[in-house]
C-alpha cells in the first residue's frame, strides 16, 4: 500500500519536473513546477515531516511561484525564442546529465532501511513534532538562524535597489508623463471639468 502511494506520488513529481523543462510556454512551466512542489510536499508528509510539508506548500508553491508567475506576466515573457543558438549542446547536456544520474545512484544506491534498528517509534514522533524542531532551531542552530534573518534583510534591500529607477530614467518618465498631460489636456479637461463644476455648488 505504502509503496503504491510512493510510486504514484514520485511519478507525479517526475511528470511535473519533466513538463517544466519541456514546455514551451513559461506559464505552463511554472504550473508544472507547482505540481512538482505539491507532490514533494506529500512525500515530506510520508517522511514524518509535516511542518516542512506545510512550509513547502506555503513558501514554495505559494509565495515563490506566485512571484515567478507575476514576473512572467509582467514582462510578457511567455514565449521566448525557441533555443536557436544551441546545436550540439543539448545532446551533450543529456549525456552528461545521464552520467551524473548514474554516478549519484551508484553512490547513494546502497539499500538503507527506512526504519533502522536504532530508530524507535518515539524518535519518529519526535521528528514530526514542531516543538522539537523549534527547540533545536533556537539552541543549537541559533547563530545560523540569526544570520538567516540578516540574509533576508539584505535580499529585500537588494531587490529594492536593483529595481529602483535611476535618476536619469526618472527624469525621462516625468517628461513623458508631462507630455501626456499636455497632449491629453484638451480631451481630458472637457470630461474632467464638468463633474467638478457640478460638485462645487454641492460642496
Amino acid at each position, binding site marked *: 500500500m505504502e509503496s503504491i502511494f510512493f510510486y504514484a506520488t514520485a511519478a507525479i513529481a517526475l511528470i511535473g519536473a519533466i513538463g517544466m523543462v519541456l514546455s514551451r510556454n513559461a506559464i505552463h512551466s511554472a504550473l508544472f513546477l507547482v505540481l512538482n512542489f505539491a507532490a514533494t510536499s506529500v512525500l515530506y508528509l510520508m*517522511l514524518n515531516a509535516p511542518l516542512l510539508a506545510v512550509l513547502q506548500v506555503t513558501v514554495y508553491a505559494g509565495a515563490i511561484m506566485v*512571484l515567478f508567475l507575476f*514576473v512572467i506576466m509582467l514582462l510578457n515573457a511567455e514565449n521566448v525564442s525557441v533555443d536557436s543558438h544551441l546545436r550540439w549542446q543539448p545532446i551533450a547536456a543529456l549525456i552528461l546529465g545521464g552520467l551524473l544520474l548514474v554516478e549519484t545512484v551508484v553512490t547513494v544506491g546502497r539499500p538503507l532501511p527506512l526504519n533502522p534498528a536504532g530508530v524507535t517509534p518515539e524518535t519518529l514522533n519526535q521528528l514530526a513534532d514542531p516543538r522539537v524542531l523549534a527547540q533545536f532551531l533556537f539552541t543549537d542552530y541559533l547563530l545560523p538562524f540569526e544570520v538567516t534573518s540578516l540574509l*533576508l534583510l539584505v535580499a529585500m534591500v*537588494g531587490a529594492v535597489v*536593483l*529595481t529602483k529607477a535611476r535618476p536619469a530614467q526618472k527624469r525621462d518618465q516625468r517628461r513623458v508623463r508631462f507630455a501626456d498631460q499636455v497632449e491629453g489636456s484638451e480631451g481630458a479637461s472637457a470630461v474632467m471639468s464638468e463633474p467638478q463644476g457640478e460638485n462645487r455648488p454641492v460642496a
Partner: protein
Amino acid sequence: MAVSVTNYTVLSAMLFTIGIIGVLTRRNAIIVFMSIELMLNAGNLAFIAFSRAFGSVDGQIFVFFVLTVAAAEVAIGLALIVTIFRSKNTADIDDISTMRG
C-alpha cells in the same frame, strides 16, 4: 516491497538531474531559474529522507535554511531579470553577453 530511503534518494537524484538538464538546455532566464529551484527542492528531499533514516532533526533544520536561501535568491534573481529586461528587452540568456561569459 517496502519503500526504503534509497527510493527517496534515487527520486531526488532524478529530480536533480532533470533540473541540471533544464539549466543547460533552456535559454529563457526565468525557466533556468525555475530549474535551479527544482534542484534545491531535490536536495531538500534527500535531506528529509536521511533525517528520517537516522532519526535526527538536523536534516529538517537544514531544509528550513535552504527554504530561506531559496526565497532570498528568488527575490534578487527576479529583480535582476526585471532590470535586464528593462534595458535589453530580452529574457534570453544568450543575448546577455556584455560580460563575455
